[in-house]
């Protein structure tokens, strides 16, 4: 019988050497690098297009200051609302089996796949129905500030739901099972075990929802209009500056948006990382 470690076809004269890892790493860097270069190229081109006086001008503009304030407040409220809804829906989809789950899953993706303008139009029509008009009698929504928050929320929440679903999918449900054997109801197991573990996912979902809301434009244009000092958020400002031919102003507002978004995201993530270490 042939010994197990000596079989035909194996070249023992030349010791085996695994292929180099260098081409693989270069390939990864090249593919990733193209995208990073594109992003940085856009930013550098924007910056090079501007004169410092353009920045001074937009900082002095009361309209832009109003739009910045409104953008920050509405995006933060939309992000909070999104989390409020995304956590229970994400948990429901992750932990429970029920009839119509696939349909619910598909419905929750609608705001992601629909063109933004269609979302704005659909919201506009919704608030023209009997129920919508009844709500409008109590709180003016359409073409008012609440419409901005609703338009941002509708889109941002869909992304937050996806993030929370995958967050809860990654948390082992076994720990909640053990909590139940120790005396927890499902609700107690959620609040005491799953919820604290989902903090990192909530931070990701919240920042994603905030960033999405901050850059939202299409639904806001249709549902809220583009009235200066009223329903003007920063993306609206870019649009309004463009529409009057002030390209420098539009680019300067864009740069302001990037700066504000980067500062907010860095601060939130930094705070989040510190919280996680506690």
């Amino acid at each position, binding site marked *: 019988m042939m010994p197990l470690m000596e079989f035909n076809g194996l070249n023992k004269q030349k010791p085996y050497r695994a292929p180099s890892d260098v081409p693989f790493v270069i390939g990864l860097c090249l593919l990733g690098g193209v995208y990073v270069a594109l992003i940085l190229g856009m930013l550098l081109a924007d910056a090079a297009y501007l004169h410092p006086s353009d920045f001074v001008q937009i900082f002095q503009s009361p309209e832009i200051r109003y739009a910045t304030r409104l953008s920050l407040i509405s995006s933060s409220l939309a992000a909070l609302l999104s989390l409020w809804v995304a956590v229970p829906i994400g948990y429901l989809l992750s932990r429970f089996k029920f009839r119509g789950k696939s349909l619910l899953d598909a419905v929750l993706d609608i705001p992601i796949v629909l063109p933004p303008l269609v979302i704005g139009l659909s919201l506009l029509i919704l608030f023209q129905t009997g129920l919508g008009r009844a709500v409008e009698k109590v709180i003016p929504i359409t073409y008012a500030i609440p419409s901005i928050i609703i338009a941002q929320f509708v889109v941002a929440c869909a992304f937050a739901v996806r993030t929370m679903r995958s967050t809860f999918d990654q948390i082992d449900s076994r720990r909640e099972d053990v909590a139940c054997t120790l005396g927890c109801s499902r609700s107690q197991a959620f609040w005491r075990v799953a919820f*604290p573990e989902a903090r990192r996912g909530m931070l990701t979902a919240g920042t994603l929802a905030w960033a999405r809301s901050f850059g939202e434009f299409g639904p806001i244009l249709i549902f809220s209009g583009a009235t200066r000092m009223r329903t003007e958020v920063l993306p609206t400002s870019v649009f309004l500056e463009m529409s009057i031919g002030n390209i420098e102003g539009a680019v300067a507002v864009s740069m302001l948006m990037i700066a504000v978004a980067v500062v907010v995201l860095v601060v939130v993530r930094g705070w989040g990382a510190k919280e996680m270490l506690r």
Partner: protein
Amino acid sequence: MIKVDQVTVHAGDFELTDISFEVPTGDYCMLMGRSGCGKTTLLESICGLRKISAGRIFLMGQEVTHERAANRGIGFVPQDLALFPTMTVREHLAFALTLRKTEKKTIDRRVAELSELLDIVDLLDRKPAGLSGGESQRVALGRALSAAPGILCLDEPLSSLDAEARQEICDLLRRIKQETHVTTLHITHNNLETEVLADQLLRLEGGAVRLL
């Protein structure tokens, strides 16, 4: 006492049919069987984590077939331990007691008592991420024992430990058995453990449980 009476349980395509056995009060029972024969499925059914299709389950003389896991009074240690990563060891030991709205003084006393028994006094302020396999096992045992359950269910508690830790936990289980007299159902593969710990030995084989 644990009494499983003609229980049928499904787990995906897998099925256990007409399973019956009984563990008398205060006994340390070890359930053996090959991998995939349904030991964990059976244990989870007793704990109330898996619904049974037929039969009845009695714990401490009460029928609990349709009772929620929370109300069965079982201390459960799963194979993967499932410690809570956001909680300290102290919070693990106090967990079941805080649910029962026990006074803080009583909780502190119980935590001290359990941490002494389990030799984890120095670990009380640590989180699971910093614990070794043996230490994690002790914490999981403490968490399961804290509310003084009538029944303890252990799913292969020694399988993932090195030889030294295995011996330590084995000694600890023997001590828990002697000091608490809690009725225990312990799943294992290892014959050596059975010699040291078992009052009663059961084997799950060919879809039936038989007394060895």
